[in-house]
């Protein structure tokens, strides 16, 4: 048997099947992105700046090729809403809301990471979500909530609550355009 495994022909075709314990657990964490984030968030901390146009553009879903790899539609794993609350207030209130819902929060590089601890210790991660705030103007902020893995229904519930509690009400959005100078 060992001899067969050594054979070149076998090696070329054979891929050992990787038994993945829990599919949900293999969350691709965007660690590589957090390194970039810290540079810009430090800059934004001292001055109230306008969002960089290229940063805004870069948020386009169509420039996000992860759609190739994800089974779910982008709307199932990423949600954005605008808010008049300041970033500090937003982060605090998001933390309050999610903690009340039974989630655990980790803060890193200006981003908030939400993890739900399942009661069953065998599968501790049930939902992993990251929240980030972008300044569009001194009175208007964009909150992005991204799901890296976990239950879709739970994620939707969380997003609805956050945008309902913290977002700009739909009716107000159109009126606000005059004040955003």
């Amino acid at each position, binding site marked *: 048997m060992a001899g067969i495994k050594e054979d070149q022909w076998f090696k070329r*075709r*054979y*891929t050992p*099947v*990787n038994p*993945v314990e829990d599919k949900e657990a*293999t969350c*691709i*964490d*965007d*660690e*590589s*992105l957090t390194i*970039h*984030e810290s*540079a*810009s968030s430090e800059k934004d901390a001292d001055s109230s700046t*306008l*969002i*960089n*146009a*290229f*940063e*805004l*553009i*870069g*948020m*386009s*879903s*169509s*420039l*996000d*090729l*992860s*759609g*190739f*790899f994800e089974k779910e*539609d*982008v709307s199932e794993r990423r949600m*954005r809403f*605008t808010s008049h609350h300041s970033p500090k207030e937003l982060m605090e209130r998001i933390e309050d809301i999610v903690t009340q819902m039974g989630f655990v929060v980790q803060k890193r590089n200006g981003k908030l990471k939400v993890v739900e601890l399942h009661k069953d210790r065998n599968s501790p991660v049930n939902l992993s979500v990251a929240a980030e705030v972008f300044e*569009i*103007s001194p009175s208007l902020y*964009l909150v992005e909530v991204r799901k890296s893995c976990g239950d879709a229904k739970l994620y939707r519930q969380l997003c609805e609550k956050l945008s309902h509690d913290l977002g700009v009400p739909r009716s107000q*959005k*159109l009126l*606000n*355009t*005059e004040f*955003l*100078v």
Partner: protein
Amino acid sequence: MGCFSSKTTKYTPGYEEPTVLASETSFTVSEVEALYELFKKLSSSIIDDGLIHKEELQFALFRNRNTKNLFADRIFDLFDVKRNGVIEFGEFVRSLSIFHPDAPLSDKIDFAFRLYDLRQTGYIEREELKEMVVALLHESDLILSEDYIELIVDKTYTDADTKGDGRIDQEEWKEFVWKNPSLIKNMTLPYLKDITLAFPSFVLKSEVEDSEM
């Protein structure tokens, strides 16, 4: 001959050997083979001809073949290196390679520049920047006043156009990205690092070929 049908492995048009592609990109041979599985899936979603058409790219990104989008158009044009209206496997792998976490930063910066140079003049003009901002706002259902859009575009443009000649060239873009690294955040797909895990169907493929022996 026998009762079983012998299945000859038919490759898609524009197919290139995984070993060749691996040597010229940031992918390993197994990763290129896994990408082939992805490619076959994407290229057969609407027109089953082994090539990715624009509608199929739109479908892959938006789950809607009809969603026309400025940015998706640019992505398509850049992936379609030969400019023959379709994306072949080789083009697909070489372009995706730029999004690999290990790909050279300069490749990412360059790709982003060409992406944003909407009319391919070699410069990112102010009108192009504004057009992209408007497209993004429209796509995200965000409403900002005209004045505000001008403000954002002006500020960014002033920051980037250090030579003050009314357009952003590649050199200015490079400098700008060095100062704001998050601008090319969308040029990296962490998925590409573990693509063989994402496509276990590759294992099935080996089994199919074994049956031909």
